[in-house]
């Protein structure tokens, strides 16, 4: 029933949208790899909840709409996080206690992959050897070892990051995460057995495509993947500032130990 006219218009708009060339040709560093340098930030609600979620009241009525949760389309491919039954129950428990238990509330380092979609910018510093990710949140950072992969000596919040190039995509193999970080504010989590493979591909002058494949047989029934665009901060003289949030969490963490006034 769709009129011929409507159909042809659809085809016309599709070509317009794709821009001039099919795949983007990134500028390259001296060593020939794509230049991922820059200050980046996600522009989605993944940090609130990786899955589709409606808008809802936040955990703190005292803050009114400021602390409310915006609606958001999920970033999980297939729209489901394949929790095992007991893990699904743990996630619900986390959600119930999110006001006090979310590591982000405590200003603990966000871990991987959450650091990449926090509502705070991060900078990729791509040297002629390794690559450093500097995150504004809690001045956390992680060095991507681009040399011979190293085994995680011990578990940490930001993990042990071994990187390599696959064509024009930076692939980071993350192990040695301590399983204490959450994946979002809704209580999604993984364990210290998680193995994450991240992929950063530059898809435009001011865009990266970021995907993270999450494998943790102790928590999930199968591997699953999140994916999202990351946007360059193009303000003039954009720079990371300081969000050292330890002080902002002390009342939450230590208030109960303070001397009563």
């Amino acid at each position, binding site marked *: 029933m769709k*009129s011929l006219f409507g159909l042809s*218009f659809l085809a016309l708009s599709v070509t317009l949208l794709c821009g001039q060339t099919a795949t983007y040709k990134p500028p390259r560093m001296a060593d020939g790899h794509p230049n991922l340098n820059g200050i980046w930030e996600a522009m989605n609600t993944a940090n609130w909840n990786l899955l*589709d*979620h*409606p*808008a809802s009241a936040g955990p703190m009525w005292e803050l009114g709409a400021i602390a409310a949760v915006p*609606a958001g*389309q*999920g970033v999980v491919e297939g729209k489901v996080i394949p929790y095992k039954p007991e893990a699904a129950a743990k996630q619900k428990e986390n959600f119930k206690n999110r006001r006090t238990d979310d590591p982000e509330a405590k200003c603990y380092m966000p871990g991987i992959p959450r650091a990449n979609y926090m509502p705070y910018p991060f900078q990729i510093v791509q040297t002629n050897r390794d690559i450093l990710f500097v995150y504004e949140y809690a001045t956390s950072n992680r060095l991507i070892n681009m040399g011979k992969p190293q085994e995680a000596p011990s578990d940490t919040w930001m993990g042990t990051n071994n990187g390599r190039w696959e064509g024009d995509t930076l692939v980071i193999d993350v192990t040695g995460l301590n399983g204490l970080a959450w994946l979002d504010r809704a209580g999604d989590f993984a364990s210290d057995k998680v193995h994450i493979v991240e992929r950063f591909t530059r898809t435009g002058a001011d865009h990266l495509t970021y995907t993270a494949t999450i494998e943790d047989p102790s928590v999930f029934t199968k591997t699953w993947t999140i994916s999202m665009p990351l946007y360059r901060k193009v303000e003039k003289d954009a720079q990371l500032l300081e969000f050292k949030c330890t002080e902002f969490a002390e009342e939450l963490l230590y208030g109960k130990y303070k001397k009563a006034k």
Partner: protein
Amino acid sequence: MRNGFLFVFLFATAAFAQSPKPYTPPKLPWGDPDLQGEWPAFANIPMQRPANFGTRAFLTDEEFAQRAKQAQKQSESDSEEFAPSDGKVNVTINPPGYWQEHGKPDHQASLVVDPPDGRIPALTPEGQAFVKNLRGGLGPGSHFPTKVDSPEDFDDYSRCITRGLVSSMLPTLYNFGNQIMQAPGFVVIRNEMIHETRVIPTDGRPHVGTGLRTYLGDSRGHWEGNTLVVETTNFNTRTGTGGAYFSDEARVTERFTRTGPEDLSYDLTVNDPKTWTKPWTLHMPYHMDKSYVIYEYACHEGNYMMIDALTGARDLEKQGKPTKVDRQQ
């Protein structure tokens, strides 16, 4: 569902049998039929037909003339600035009568056109139970709540949340402005009250995930000839129409067909087997009014009622009186 459409189609053409061939709307630069304009819900048609009308869908000329006279008198008093000074003042608890726009009478006997008796079909047991069990058995919030403990005792409109998709398109006391705007790949419907706007993609993309539920649902549009067909799903079970609430499977189908330079035929079919025993359809004849200006309806921002009602209830409780809100007869 199929027959619903068939019936509507017959109804629409019957209503305009007199115009020889269907109107062809002008085309927009990018080829879509142009439905743009101000389409206030002026036609003052009741939602449901009085039982004694049976399946008669239209007023007789005599009935219409009587309503026209009534509307004329009403619009004169609507345009008054103050209550009549000749002492005969009917003191009520409502704002002054002249703060309303009563719209114009129409031959159509009721908005509901299917089922043929012009009445909304019966609720399913599940639909009834859902409404009754709301708020732990207290039922939905009401315009006239039986108690005033908290904002939830009021209906969504009193709380300035929303009037829901269906009511926002239909006639009411005032501010029934609707505007249609179009851009390549999108049709936008702006409802004046309560400043809600549905941006409807027409590029055939799928609905958002079922986990995403909203008051106005998730709309997708496509063109069938010169008719815009809009399918809306993903309602959040806290909105509906006629006192009932859409279930999570409700599907609302709207059809916009321009039948003349200043006329837009609008059909809305509700398909929600978990709530109503049958699908039902309403028809609204919009008439363009280029002079109608949609003003901002900032409802929540000025909602003194909520504060007055709640503080008032607290005072009543101190005096040991009930806080039930009775309608002034």
